[in-house]
């Protein structure tokens, strides 16, 4: 297992180097001149040149790149011009916000989608199968920002059940001391149950928004893979041997159907991080997605590079995790590894 992890990590190095080079070049190729942008509304040409010099954009590209990689080696991702903060610190503060939201969205989605998929597969053509089809189609065809806005409109503006969409905590609560960065956990560690309730109620709408969007692939994949497994020889054998339907489905069929579902989960997780950008915008969520988009709009190089790099590292780790999960679920993968 350890050698497998080591091998996988070694394979990741070239792709990370590639990511560093490509993001550097891409951000430089963006249209727009950050110096002119940050010189402000009344700048003269000299003022713009002064700022360009201050930011180091007057140097040749190679020199900028060498300086960038040098800083990178020291863990310095540069400083964002739009927010004025070091990128590494901002990503560190914002990543838990995005991760907490995405994970909760994913959990909500799994809790609904997998039972729905399994039930739909065991009773094809029944009402539950149709329900599964309708919810997944509806969920995937609604853009996230639209679902988010509708939820805000109904549950906050009309009914007043949800709190104001103002980020991770109500304005009048202070953030718990950071331990994990996940407010749900940190507030419990700090034994601040009021803040926990506030953090949870702030999370519900955005998490549901993400869950609705990601229901479809998980439920559909669970259903399809369950159908295939249920039609296979070993399930027929198990049934013929007189095992109870519950045992056949849960112990034999479900475990075998999990592999493609896990793959789908990893994909869903990655595109949830993307969809996050819009959800973060709608709910004023201080996550990394909205951070990166704002930086992109302002031609602010450092955060964009930092964001892409962070995402690349996260994908590598995620893929590793999925590979290991395969081994846990299916012993055959472990042997080959």
């Amino acid at each position: 297992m350890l050698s497998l992890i080591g091998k996988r990590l070694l394979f990741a190095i070239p792709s990370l180097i590639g990511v560093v080079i490509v993001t550097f070049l891409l951000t430089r190729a963006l249209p727009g001149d950050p110096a002119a942008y940050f010189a402000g509304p009344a700048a003269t040409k000299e003022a713009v040149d002064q700022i360009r010099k201050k930011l180091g954009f007057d140097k040749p590209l190679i020199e900028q790149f060498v300086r960038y990689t040098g800083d990178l080696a020291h863990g310095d991702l540069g400083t964002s011009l739009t927010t004025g903060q070091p990128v590494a610190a901002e990503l560190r503060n914002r990543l838990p916000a995005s991760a907490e939201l995405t994970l909760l969205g994913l959990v909500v989605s799994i809790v609904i989608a997998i039972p729905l998929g399994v039930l739909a597969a065991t009773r094809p053509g029944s009402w539950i199968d149709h329900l599964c089809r309708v919810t997944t189609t509806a969920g995937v065809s609604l853009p996230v920002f639209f679902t988010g806005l509708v939820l805000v409109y109904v549950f906050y503006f009309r009914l007043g059940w949800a709190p104001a969409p103002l980020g991770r905590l109500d304005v009048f609560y202070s953030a718990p001391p950071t331990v994990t960065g996940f407010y749900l956990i940190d507030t419990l560690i700090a034994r601040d149950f009021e803040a926990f309730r506030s953090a949870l109620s702030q999370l519900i709408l955005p998490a549901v928004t993400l869950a609705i969007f990601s229901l479809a692939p998980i439920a559909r994949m669970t259903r399809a893979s369950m159908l295939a497994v249920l039609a296979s020889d070993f399930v027929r054998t198990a049934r013929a041997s007189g095992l109870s339907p519950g045992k056949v489905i849960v112990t034999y069929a479900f475990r075998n159907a999990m592999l493609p579902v896990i793959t789908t989960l990893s994909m869903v997780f990655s595109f949830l991080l993307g969809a996050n950008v819009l959800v973060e915008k709608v709910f004023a969520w201080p996550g990394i997605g909205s951070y990166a988009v704002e930086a992109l709009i302002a031609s602010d190089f450092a955060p964009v590079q930092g964001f892409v790099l962070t995402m690349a590292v996260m994908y590598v780790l995620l893929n590793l995790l999925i590979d290991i999960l395969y081994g846990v679920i299916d012993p055959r993968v472990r042997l080959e590894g």
Partner: protein
Amino acid sequence: MKRRDFLKSVSGLAAGALAPTAPAIWSPAKADARSETLLIVSEGGPNNLDIHGVGTNVPGYEVSWNCYDRLISHEMKSGPGGVPYYDRDKFKPELAEDFNIGDMSVTFKLRKNAKFHDGAPVTAKDVKWSLDRAVSVGGFPTFQMSAGSLTKPEQFVIVDDHTVRVDFLRKDELTIPDLAVIVPCVVNSELVKKNASEKDPWGLEFTKQQTAGSGAYKVTKWTAGTEVVMERNDDWVSGPLPKIKRVIWRMVPQAGNRRALLERGDADISYELPFKDFQEMKANGKLNVVSLPFSNGIQYIGMNVTKPPFDNPKVRQAMAYAMPYQKIMDAVLFGLANPMFGAAKDKPTEVAWPQPTKYFTDMEKAKALLAEAGYANGFETTISFDLNFAGVNEPLCVLVQESLAQLGIKTTINKVPGANWRTELTKKEMPLFTNVFSGWLDYPEYFFYWCYHGNNSIFNTMSYKSPEMDKLIDGARIAAANGDTAAYDADVKGFVDLAFADIPRIPLYQPFVNVAMQKNISGYEYWFHRRLDYRAMAKG
């Protein structure tokens, strides 16, 4: 076993990545805090708390305005609709308790009991250091200082501990007003010097993150892109103690949500909403909506006069007659702007800016003028706009496109991303575009100096050059400095007339700044910088 090892290492990694930050310094006293707290929601927040910093954005100006003092400020007068509006011509002491304008200098006596947020007294040394800083750091602050002929550190002289003299470089009517804008704020020099470095002698890195002033508020928490929390400085002496104890300013990117927050009563104040929302909120009367014209500001259609077809004045006049003025007012702005067109034929030119042109939508006249210029069958061109203000610019350009199509002019719309807009403006290659210009200093010759003068500043987006125009603008500046009213009036009327006859840019309207607030919020004041002044506001 191996799996467990792996999990351990992963959680170790995660803990390492999430290094603990300092515990929150702001502990809330929840329900009762509400009545003394002002909750502001807006789209963007500051990127730097110091206006002297590199590339400080407009929301950053609001922090500076409220957390730092200047030597002098403006009095208020009653503006449109009875809303307090800053008085361009009347100054009041702020950090100075008294000031004396001489022929070639102005002397300020500082308040003796004024203190910085850390308790250090405000002295003449701090004032000189701050003004030196403003004229030396480069970029926008230095540029703004130079607009009032304030360019050299030698101009700022310490007379004694509590007296500062500012020597004039030359007679310039704009010097005193320029000392009352946001830039010449007074910074705690000792504190900042302590945190400066050789690479950063003015301590810009330090003041970027925290306020070091003597103003009515101080920033106690700032999470870039998320929120700014400001607390009242109870020891403030430069004016009456503000009523609002704490200001929480949250960034809510979604305009619809900002409106929902206001209508539900969760937020106190917001700006930067679509015009349609302001219009509807005004109509349903649940909130106070204040709409005031930008001082010295105009949205216009500019034409590049160096290239055909717009090098021909006849074509430019034809364009001015082809603009769908009223449609823009109704469909794009929902009436929330002052028209800058359609003045009566016999109306004499005023000594004022902005003022409406005599152009109005007249397609027949436009056709005739185009035919005279030799473009009876029209031509092809591109109209560009800044995507940062797409809410107004996009429908406006579509209306212009439709209208020009009636003259046979085929217009392509070019949407320029915000980051790129300034670069495009500097290049001066766009044939046709829409933009806004608004000057902090509310003087006609200031506007014309930037927008029409042949020295071709970045705001002379049309590359318009006319010796006659330059003579009139320079004449007005000299006349103003010498107090020669007759010559000044003649010159101002002259350059306005010339600008309308030559029409390198077509004024459309004077935009409004719109602010929506709860009914229990009072004390909103309009300032030249168009941001909020919390010091006068009250709740309940």
